[in-house]
């Protein structure tokens, strides 16, 4: 049981929009184990963004429960969720979401700042993370001095620097050309090989192909959950 990183049970999320109530998730039950590489797919409106927000502890469910690494996190306060995000989750966004005025090094250091790590250790760990994604020569550059692929590598380094339980990527190649996309997916594959649990939210089948398991959502419910035969084979 200890290798269950994520376990959600009848997870539901309801939004109130004016007089209307929208059920974005209608009771989803799913388990993700340590060192799994999962792709979450679905058309827009399927609830995959909502699911990602809940998994990433950016939002709390209106029904059901969510255990992350053995801890029930579905009823936590804002600040407790912030702590969970800081320690357990590494985000990689479609639009990179780097701080534009800060250097690559500073961007990578940021999660450690909020973790209360001393400045010397912060620097050491950030340098290590940037070296791991092959950006040791770009550390003092600002995001606008980096290419799209390099920016996404900085974001990956930032996601990894706190050694999170899961790497949560939301359309990580959505703003990249196909060559760069392949590079990024190669980084993900390497990380997975090193034992990192990875969840990629995407609507592109070519990206989902890299995962070893594909979960498809539709209308806020689990549509299919299949091992990726190509990878498995």
């Amino acid at each position, binding site marked *: 049981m200890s290798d269950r990183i994520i376990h959600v049970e009848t997870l539901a999320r309801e939004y109130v929009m004016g007089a209307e109530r929208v059920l974005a998730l209608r009771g989803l039950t799913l388990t993700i184990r340590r060192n799994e590489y999962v792709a979450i797919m679905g058309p827009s409106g399927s609830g995959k963004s909502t699911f990602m927000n809940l998994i990433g502890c950016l939002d709390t469910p209106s029904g059901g429960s969510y255990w992350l690494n053995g801890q029930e996190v579905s009823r936590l306060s804002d600040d407790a969720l912030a702590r969970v995000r800081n320690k357990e989750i590494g*985000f990689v966004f479609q639009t990179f979401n*780097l*701080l534009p005025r800060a250097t690559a090094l500073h961007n990578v250091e940021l999660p450690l700042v909020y973790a209360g790590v001393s400045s010397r250790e912060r620097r050491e760990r950030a340098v290590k993370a940037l070296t791991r994604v092959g950006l040791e020569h770009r550390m003092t550059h600002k995001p606008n001095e980096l290419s799209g692929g390099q920016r996404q590598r900085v974001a990956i380094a930032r996601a990894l620097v706190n050694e999170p339980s899961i790497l949560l990527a939301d359309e990580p190649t959505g703003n990249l050309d196909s060559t760069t996309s392949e590079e990024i997916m190669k980084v993900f594959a390497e990380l997975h090989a090193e034992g990192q649990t990875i969840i990629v939210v995407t609507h592109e089948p070519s990206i989902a192909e890299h995962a070893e398991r594909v979960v498809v959502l539709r209308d806020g419910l689990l549509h299919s959950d299949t091992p990726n035969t190509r990878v498995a084979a």
Partner: protein
Amino acid sequence: MPVFEAVRMALRTIVSQKLKSFFSLIGVLIGVTFLIAVVSIVQGMNVYMEDQFANRLIGLNTFTLRRQPGINTGNTTEETWRAWQRRPRISYADADYITERLQTPAVTAKYCSDRMTLMYNGKQAKDIELMGTEPSYFEIKNVDIASGRIFTPQEVRAGVPVLVVGSEIGEKLFEGQDPLGKVVMIAGLPYRVIGVAAKRGTLFGISLDKFAVMPFRAPARRYICPLNVLDELEIKAANPTLMLAAMGETEALMRTRRGLRPEQENNFDLQNASGALEGWKKISKVLITALPLLVAVSLVVGGIVIMNIMLMAVAERTREIGIRKALGAKRRDILAQFVIESATLSTVGAMFGVATGIGLAYLVRAFTPLPAAVAPWSIGVGVGVGMLVGMVAGVYPASRAAQLDPITALRAE
């Protein structure tokens, strides 16, 4: 959130947006400038009034016995003025009475003065303060002699027509020649110059070197003192304590001599340097009291401007806030970041205010006779108040930032 990082970020914002920062900080800047400059000028005035004005005109540890106050820095009503005019004058006998009976060790000098014209070789020096007094006067007023000598008690007793002149008269009337031994005409009578006083400079731009001192009993006395009447008796003691003792004694002696009953007020005046400054002290007190109000107004305005700037910053940087929250920033981290940023902005404004305030004080010093002295405490208060304004102004925008929902914030713009 380390304080240092937030401070650095705020400084970076100021440097990258110089003009915008200048306008957002101008309120605080003006407030602090005002604080520093006014405190400097008022304190400078205090020093000036005490050192220069009162101590030079009246003298250190010195007081005067007069019919009415000699120096008025406050307002005098006409009624008071008329009451003063009804008082008996100070006679020679009054002066001798005090000098003989005073137990406290003190030096006294009878004193009369008026504006007279001095003539030499057909040249005139008009509006010269001609003083008739005793040799002790030079000690009492700290008048140093540059060349020659002062007159002696014997010359006073005999009424010898000799003069000690101020440095400006020496220069103007004799055009560079040595004034010593020259004979000057006053009201048609000859006076021999026996001494020249050292240069005393100016007070409020008025020369203090246009004077001539003659023995009290010299012939021109009738032009400067009405018969048997003195302008004042000057009394100097060795230190402030003795001066106050001598003042009390003189008051008692005069009351006895004039037969005043206990309920009657003094019909004479005793004035020392601090007494002469009473009016000024009132003015300076009003200025120092009104100052916080004036400063507060511009600081409130400055605070509101900073609050608006910070609200704009929060709106512009919603996404950054979202990113920080996604990476684990707690509410108080975001709150602290923006409060520190606001305080830094405002402190920078206050520091510039201190600089311009000091600059203004120095300008006043350079172009007026006032020695504006920058008070160190006012710098501390200025910077501290500036920082406080920034913190207070930053709380509301910062709490708005802290309340933002991470998902909405991440989706911004």
